């Protein structure tokens, strides 16, 4: 693994250049307390003073709404036209939890039927991670096997160091990016970057206000589907679905047609949510998850058990977005702790 150093001034110039050569997606301060990953024209639009974005950056690989193909039924004939492939992109500034979120989505969109839309964006997007510099009250990535300086999955990992930035190329794609813009970097000959990142990691590790122990929780859920505990949670849940929209690992989607003139239209997909009753309701009226209890249970079982059953990966990365945004303060960390307690008394 090769490391490089860049001055603070060069970061801006480099990002300006990247914005010219690629679609550059980076954190932007949309309004007070709202940070979003968006395409930017240059460094001036980027805000680097953030712990994490309001919505996860997964949307640049798996868009909130994505056109799949256009159709025309004019003249009694069917014509299907593919959408234009997106331009190569770079996402700059992904926090480690969100990189892990993308690694969590990867096997869903691969498998027996690789999803061509996801695969195309994934292959054409370079991930530039950025180590965290602080820990918020809702953060719990270390409880889910990650860490604020654990950039695994990124092509390039950036760490703030004294007088500038350290860059580590974690993949050949990251190495190529460094090579292409080598004028901006100098090789790190004294392991400054790795030492700085390790020091930062140790410092931040002590700043988590709440950690949880997931040991045995999945195994308990394997044996216990029916729990009165889910009634408790469901009574509070409003079913608003915000947790699923901001989550970096939720992948559910709907597919819909839009044809304003009845003949020409587009088939798209858009994020959907297991919190909604119509999500599983069949045309004939039968609904296998008829109340909020079944829906809440499905969401938490998906995160803590089903994703591990299918892909051997945790379904939660500990970003804490759902913890801060839930209007009724349903906190997955508390749920994990409660399940530990329920398991002990079972």
């Amino acid at each position, binding site marked *: 693994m090769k490391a490089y150093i860049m001055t603070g001034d060069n970061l801006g110039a480099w990002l300006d250049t990247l914005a010219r050569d690629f679609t550059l997606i980076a954190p932007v301060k949309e309004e007070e307390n709202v940070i979003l990953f968006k395409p930017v024209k240059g460094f001036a639009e980027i805000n680097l003073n953030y712990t994490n974005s309001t919505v996860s950056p997964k949307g640049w690989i798996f868009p909130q709404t994505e056109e*799949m*193909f256009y*159709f025309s*039924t004019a003249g*009694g*004939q*069917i014509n*299907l036209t*593919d959408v234009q492939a997106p331009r190569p992109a770079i996402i700059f500034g992904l926090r480690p939890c969100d990189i892990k979120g993308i690694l969590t989505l990867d096997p*869903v*969109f691969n*498998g*027996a*039927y690789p*999803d*061509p*839309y996801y695969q195309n964006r994934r292959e054409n997007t370079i991930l530039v991670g950025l180590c965290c510099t602080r820990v918020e009250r809702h953060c719990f990535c270390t409880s889910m096997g990650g860490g604020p300086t654990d950039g695994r999955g990124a092509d390039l990992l950036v760490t703030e160091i004294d007088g500038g930035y350290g860059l580590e190329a974690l993949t050949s794609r990251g190495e190529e990016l460094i090579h292409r813009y080598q004028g901006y970097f100098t090789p790190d000959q004294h392991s400054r970057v790795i030492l700085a990142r390790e020091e930062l990691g140790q410092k931040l590790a002590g700043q988590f206000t709440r950690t949880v122990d997931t040991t045995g929780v999945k195994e308990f859920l394997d044996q216990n*589907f029916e729990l009165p505990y889910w009634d408790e949670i469901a009574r509070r849940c409003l079913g608003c679905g915000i947790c699923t929209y901001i989550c970096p690992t939720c*992948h*559910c*989607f*709907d*597919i*819909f*047609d839009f*044809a304003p003139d*009845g*003949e020409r*239209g587009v*088939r798209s*997909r858009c994020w*959907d949510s*297991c919190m909604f009753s119509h*999500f*599983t*309701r*069949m*045309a*004939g009226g*039968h609904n*296998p*998850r008829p109340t909020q209890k*079944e829906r809440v249970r*499905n969401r938490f*079982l*998906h995160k803590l*058990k*089903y994703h591990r*059953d*299918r892909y051997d990966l945790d379904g939660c990365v500990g970003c804490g977005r759902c913890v801060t945004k839930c209007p009724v303060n349903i906190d997955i960390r508390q749920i994990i702790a409660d399940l530990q307690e329920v398991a002990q008394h079972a």
Partner: protein
Amino acid sequence: MRNCQCINPLKPYPATIIKIIDETPDVKSFQMVFDNPAVMENFRQKPGQVAQLSVFGVGEATISITSSPTRRGILEFSVKKVGMLTSALHRLEVGSKVGIRGPYGNHFPYEVMKGKDLLFIGGGIGLAPLRSLIDFVLAEENRGDYGKVEIIYGARSMDDLCFKYDILDRWPQMPGTTVYTTIDRAELGWEGHVGFVPAYLEEINPSPENKYAITCGPPIMIKFVLQALEKMGFADDQVITTLEMKMKCGIGKCGRCNIGSKYVCLDGPVFYLSQLKRLPPEF
């Protein structure tokens, strides 16, 4: 295991409706052919698999393929008018264009069933997925591989019996085949059995020996059929059913057809009762 040979599993292939059969007041069967003969040739479904039907501008729905794979050159879907997409399908005519993608899902274990007697138990439109296997087994090239075939089928009324030409005419004439038909309530002009399917099943009381029972119908019928089969001594791995769930993608990504950690679109729709009993009761 991947079934469809397509490059983009989410993009349907254009097809044309070549025949429509009015089965009941709210069920029609649609025979469809892909517009590209190579796509038709390469579409190799197995009995019990499903496909996604598109009415462009309206959307898609998952429908079981009711025709047997032994019938090459066409695909047949029997569709009850219950929602937006199925209502749109019912408005189409011969010559109308649709989209089809698939086949998806697992299939009835027709290899394992070789040498066995088969008992089919269907209710209403639930006969549609069973029919792909019935006609596969009864096809001349396969008939010798299987034992006796019994079919118990019921519907609310005479009008609601699907595939009357099969259950009343064609199947009873096939060698080694017995068809029992029932309707829920007595009706003028009906001389056959009257009563619900599970009760009729108990009355017929088929022996479980060397036999597989395959059932599909409304959830309430399936529930009582499974109870009746258990009472008659059928073991859980002799009983097979096929499930319906709301699906969007059909390829295990859109997240809604899961029962526990199984996706009905990938791991189903066909399940042994022994498998179902290991899943959470969410269907």
